[in-house]
């Protein structure tokens, strides 16, 4: 994986000092909160309900065991012994003091980490496929391109005060594991007929209050023009994105209002101009970055899993993913224990995962947007030993992609923007479905819960989505069905009137009953919904 050279390290170190100085000026009163807020946000520091919250960037979700270990230590040293993995493949600490923030950033910098641009109206941390570099089905490893974009987007002088936040995802497989088309820019690395690699650009997707699926605006951008093309996309947005209304300021609104064709025309015009400016990094840089992502030294070994332990076999079936080397798999560590808080891990658990990565996965880990952790390269021969250790640490839940593996944002328990709590719903649903053994019968069912319209819990893209709203001071929940953030991207539709907390849990139970009654063959919940439509579900929920 990528490691810093002295230039990268100097950039991050300079940022720590810059932030230390900004925090000093805030505490001395030289900066008002209005002036300081965008600065602290660009270092990932929010003011939430109970304290400051620090969001640490995990570029394209990849980190090594030393970095993971440091995250665990920071949780214990500066927070209350835990962290929360997010749907943007980042980690959040919930109980941070402003006085400590610069010291934490300094600790992070020691392990080549930072919180740069994890918030604010700028280009955010670049996300990617959590199985990148390991998946059997990928064209190439997308992370070198993501890293190139990380550098380009870090402290970009022109694009630091955009109309609104800006999220980019890069993938390189037909199967989309990164919700690519629900990003401001989604890039798929593809191959043209001549066998050359290039970037396919989708622009103007997003969730939030106006969910949209990004249209493709360019089928193939040659790799030696990748940054230039992205710069053109951003410049058109920076100049013409709406700034009169915060809720209409994302690029999806610009693309929608201009129309895809007109937006594309403007980008192409800007692109032609920027090509003449020679802003593209040398291609040799992409080659240099690629060398950092060379495969580890895989060895041939057992290709068959010993399934004699039935509990282990269930975990293998659910929580492993096919690797490009047939003696390995990628193993998913679920952070969704039954009744637990989705995405939370204690400092000790984080250090355990770091150690397991070192022992079993060539020192590497990935964070999934579904708030789980991946050990990307595990020898099939080592799987049982790994699983045994995970079980002991309370990290062995065999529930990937089941209803228990739901995404839930922090919600009103932590978040200043939330209207309703998300976590208690997640806890109760997983307890209920686990107890009735329905989880197994339902198979793949992607459930996503957001505590407000900003949709950090991706509810628009859930096979079943729940959105918490504020109904005259009490929590209320809207149910939606039929969303997907995979390559068959679709947006979920609301079933009808909302529910109380108890009511929405009953409602989830009812819609899953409809599925179990109606499904044909190997259909997933989503497939059945697409075939039979909303009506049977509505009928079950609201009666005649």
């Amino acid at each position, binding site marked *: 994986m990528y490691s810093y050279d002295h230039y990268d390290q100097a950039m991050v170190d300079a940022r720590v000092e810059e932030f230390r100085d900004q925090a000093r000026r805030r505490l001395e009163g030289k900066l008002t909160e209005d002036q300081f807020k965008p600065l602290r946000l660009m270092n990932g520091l929010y003011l939430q309900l109970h*304290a400051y919250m620090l969001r640490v960037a995990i570029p394209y979700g990849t980190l090594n065991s030393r970095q993971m270990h440091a995250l665990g230590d920071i949780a214990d040293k500066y927070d209350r012994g835990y962290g929360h993995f997010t749907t943007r493949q980042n980690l959040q600490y919930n109980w941070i003091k402003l006085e400590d923030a610069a010291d934490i950033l300094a600790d992070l910098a020691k392990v080549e980490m930072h919180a740069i641009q994890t918030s604010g109206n700028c280009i955010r941390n670049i996300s990617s496929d959590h199985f990148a570099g390991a998946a059997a089905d990928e064209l190439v490893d997308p992370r070198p391109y993501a890293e190139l974009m990380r550098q380009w987007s870090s402290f970009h002088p022109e694009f630091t005060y955009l109309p609104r936040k800006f999220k980019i995802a890069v993938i390189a497989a037909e199967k989309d594991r990164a919700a690519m088309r629900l990003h401001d820019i989604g890039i798929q690395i593809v191959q043209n007929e001549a066998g050359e690699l290039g970037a396919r650009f989708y622009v103007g997707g997003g969730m939030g209050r106006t969910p949209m699926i990004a249209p493709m605006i360019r089928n193939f951008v040659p790799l030696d023009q990748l940054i230039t093309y992205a710069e053109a996309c951003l410049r058109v947005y920076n100049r013409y994105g709406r700034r009169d209304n915060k809720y209409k300021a994302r690029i999806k609104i610009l693309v929608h209002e201009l129309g895809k064709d007109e937006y594309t025309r403007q980008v192409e015009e800007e692109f032609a101009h920027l090509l003449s400016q020679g802003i593209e990094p040398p291609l040799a840089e992409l080659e240099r970055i690629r060398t950092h992502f060379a495969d580890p030294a895989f060895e041939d070994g057992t290709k068959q899993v010993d399934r004699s332990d039935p509990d282990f076999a269930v975990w293998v079936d659910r929580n492993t993913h096919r690797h490009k080397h047939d003696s390995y798999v990628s193993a998913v560590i679920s952070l969704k224990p039954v009744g637990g*808080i989705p995405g939370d891990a204690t400092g000790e658990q984080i250090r355990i995962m770091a150690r397991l990565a070192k022992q079993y996965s060539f020192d590497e880990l990935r964070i999934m947007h579904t708030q789980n952790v991946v050990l990307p390269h595990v020898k099939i021969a080592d799987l049982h030993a790994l699983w045994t250790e995970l079980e002991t640490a309370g990290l062995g839940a065999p529930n990937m992609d089941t209803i228990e593996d739901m995404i839930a944002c922090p919600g009103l328990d932590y978040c200043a923007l939330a209207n309703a709590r998300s976590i208690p719903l997640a806890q109760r649903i997983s307890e209920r479905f686990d107890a009735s053994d329905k989880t197994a019968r339902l198979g793949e069912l992607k459930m996503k819960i957001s505590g407000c319209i900003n949709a950090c819990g991706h509810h628009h893209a859930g096979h079943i989505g729940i959105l918490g709203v504020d109904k005259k001071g009490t929590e209320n929940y809207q149910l939606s069905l039929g969303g997907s953030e995979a390559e068959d991207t679709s947006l979920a539709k609301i079933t009808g009137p909302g529910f109380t907390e108890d009511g929405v849990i009953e409602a989830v139970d009812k819609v899953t009953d409809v599925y179990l009654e109606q499904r044909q063959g190997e259909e997933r919940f989503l497939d059945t919904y697409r075939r039979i439509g909303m009506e049977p579900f509505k009928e079950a929920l609201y009666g005649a």
Partner: protein
Amino acid sequence: MIILTGNDLKTGAVTWWNGADWSLYVDDAVDVGEQAEEILAREEALRRVNVPYSIQATREDDGKVRPAHIKDRIRALGPTVRPDLTLKPQSPEAIDWVI
């Protein structure tokens, strides 16, 4: 009653205006009546509190203060999903007060 709340600038901790200073405990909050804006402006300028605001609340028969909105009740107690990290870790039933 109208009470004032915000977060401590340095630590981020939730605080409540007790008439002279900012307390960690909502039950210390006092009714500021018409003076809300004046106190908020002064205290924020002094950096004794960050992004403060005024809210509706009621003082109950036992003298305890109950903010009108669930968000401020969660702020007053702590995350309902981590009773151990709230201000009343010994009484998990305090969560019921929030809801």
